[in-house]
C-alpha cells in the first residue's frame, strides 16, 4: 500500500511538475548554446528584462513598506474591523489577473475616469511603464503583509513593551526588538512578492500595449516570440524566468524552515493560518 501510493504520487508529480521543468530547458537549448545566447542577448529581450527588473524594484519595496505598517497595526493593536481589513488586504488574490489589469485601463485609459485629466497633464499611464508598475504593485500587494501578520502576532507585544519602558524610542524598538523577531517572515514575504512581481502576465498584458523594447516585460516578450513561432527563442527567454522560479523555490525552502522555527519557539505553531498564498 505504502509503496503503491508513493509510486503513484511520484509518477503524477513527474508528469505534472518535473516534465514541464525539463521541457523548458531542453527546448531552450534545442538548437545548441549559440542560438540560446543570441536569443537572450537580443536587444528586445534585454529591454524586457530591464523593464521587468524595474517594475519589481518599485513594486517590492512599496509592498514591503505597506506590509510592515499593516502587520504592525494589525498584530500589535486591537481595533474594530480587523477582520474586514484582513479580507480587504487579500482582495487582489481573489481577482482574476485580467481584471487586475483592466481596472487600471478603466481608471487611466482614454475613456477612463481619470483619462482626460491624465491626458491634459501629458502623463501616459496605460500602454506605458507607469501602468505596468501599478498593475505589478496590485497583483503582488498582499504577499508581505500576509506573511508578516502571523509572525508578528506570534511574537506578541511583551518584548516591545519592555523596550519602551526601558526608554527606547518607537523606531529604535522596531529596529532592535521587532525586526530580529520577524526577519525570516519578512524575507519569506519578499521572496514570494518578488516572484509574482517578475512573473506576472495577465494583468501586465492588459495595461502594456506590448510595444517592443518599450512596454514589454519578460513574460510578454515570451508571448510575442511564441506567437511568431520563434519557439526556441521563446523558451530561451522562458528559461531565465524558470531559473528565477528555481532560485525562488530554494530560497523559500531555506527560509521556510527558519520561519517555522521562529513560530514554533515563540508559541504553539499556528499552522492553520499558513494556507498558500497566490
Amino acid at each position: 500500500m505504502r509503496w503503491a501510493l508513493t509510486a503513484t504520487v511520484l509518477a503524477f508529480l513527474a508528469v505534472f511538475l518535473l516534465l514541464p521543468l525539463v521541457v523548458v530547458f531542453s527546448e531552450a537549448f534545442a538548437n545548441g548554446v549559440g542560438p540560446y545566447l543570441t536569443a537572450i542577448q537580443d536587444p528586445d529581450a534585454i529591454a524586457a528584462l530591464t523593464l521587468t527588473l524595474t517594475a519589481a524594484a518599485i513594486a517590492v519595496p512599496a509592498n514591503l513598506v505597506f506590509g510592515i505598517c499593516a502587520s504592525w497595526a494589525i498584530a500589535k493593536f486591537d481595533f474594530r474591523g480587523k477582520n474586514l481589513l484582513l479580507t480587504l488586504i487579500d482582495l487582489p488574490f481573489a481577482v482574476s489577473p485580467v481584471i487586475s489589469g483592466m481596472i487600471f485601463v478603466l481608471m487611466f485609459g482614454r475613456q477612463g475616469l481619470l483619462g482626460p485629466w491624465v491626458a491634459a497633464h501629458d502623463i501616459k499611464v496605460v500602454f506605458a511603464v507607469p501602468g505596468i508598475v501599478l498593475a505589478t504593485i496590485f497583483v503582488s500587494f498582499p504577499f508581505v503583509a500576509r506573511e508578516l501578520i502571523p509572525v508578528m502576532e506570534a511574537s506578541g507585544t511583551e518584548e516591545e513593551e519592555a523596550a519602551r519602558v526601558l526608554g527606547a524610542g518607537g523606531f529604535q524598538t522596531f529596529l532592535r526588538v521587532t525586526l530580529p523577531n520577524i526577519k525570516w517572515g519578512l524575507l519569506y514575504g519578499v521572496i514570494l512578492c518578488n516572484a509574482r512581481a517578475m512573473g506576472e502576465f495577465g494583468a501586465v498584458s492588459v495595461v502594456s500595449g506590448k510595444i517592443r523594447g518599450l512596454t514589454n516585460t519578460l513574460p510578454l516578450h515570451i508571448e510575442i516570440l511564441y506567437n511568431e513561432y520563434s519557439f526556441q527563442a521563446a523558451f530561451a527567454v522562458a528559461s531565465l524566468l524558470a531559473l528565477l522560479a528555481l532560485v525562488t523555490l530554494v530560497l523559500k525552502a531555506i527560509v521556510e524552515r527558519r520561519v517555522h522555527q521562529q513560530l514554533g519557539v515563540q508559541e504553539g505553531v499556528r499552522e492553520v493560518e499558513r494556507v498558500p498564498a497566490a
Partner: protein
Amino acid sequence: MARRRVLPGFGLTMGFTVLYLCLIVLIPLSMLPLRAASGSWDAFWQTVTDPRVIASYRLSISASVAAAAVNAIFGILVAWVLVRYEFPGRRIIDALIDLPFALPTAVAGITLTTIYAPNGWIGKPLDAYGIKVAFTPLGITIALIFIGLPFVVRTLQPVIESLDVEIEEAATSLGASRWTVTRKIILPYLYPAWLTGFALAFARAVGEYGSVVFISGNMPMRTEISPLLIITKLEQFDYAGATSIAVVMLVLSFSMLLTINALQRWSSRRLLT
C-alpha cells in the same frame, strides 16, 4: 486595551495602511462597479447572456471544477505521502510542489502547450490513440491542474501533520481495518481542509489566464475562456462589454472568497477542539 497602547505608531501605520489600500486596491477596483452602474441594465444583460459569453462562463467553470477535483484527489495523496512516508528526495519534492506558484504563468503556458501538442512529448503518444489534448477543453483542464495543485497539498499538509497517529493505532488495535480507519477517522478529520483546498484551487482556476491562453486554442464558443473574452472586448475598446463580463466574474470570485474564509474558520475551529 489601554496597556497595549504603550506601543507607539498605531496612528501612523494604520493611516498609511488604509491610505495605501485605498489607492492601490479599493479605488481601482471600484472602477468596475462604477463603470457597470453607468451603463444600462439592458446592455449589461444582453452582454452577459450572449451565447458566446455564456459558453465562456460554462467552459471556465466546468474546466475549473474538473481541475480542482483532480487536484483534490491527487493532492490528498501527495500530501499524505509527503507527510507520512520517508523516502529519498522527499525534501526536494516537497519544495518542488510550489513550482506552479513560482513559475510565471506564461512559461507554464508555452511549456504545457509544447508537451501536449500533437507532436509533443505526451501529446504525440496520446494522438496515436486519437486523444487530442492541446487546443481542446482537456488541455485547458490540464493547465488548470498544474496551477491549482499546490493549493490542495499545502492546505492539507499541516492538518495531516497534526493528525495523531495514536488515534489510528487505537482504532486498528480495536479491530478496525485500514479502510475503516481511513473512512471513519482520517477523512472526516481532513474534510474541512480538503474542501478549502478544493475551493482555493477552483477560485484560482476560474480567473487564470496566462497558463491557459496558449494551450486553449481560443476558438469562440468552444475553447474561449472568460478572461480571454474580457481582453478581446478591451482590445475592441468595448469597455462596457468587458466590464459586464468582469462584474459577473468578480461576483463569483467574491462569493468564493467568502466561502473560503468560512471554510477556514470551520477548519481551524475543528483543529482547536
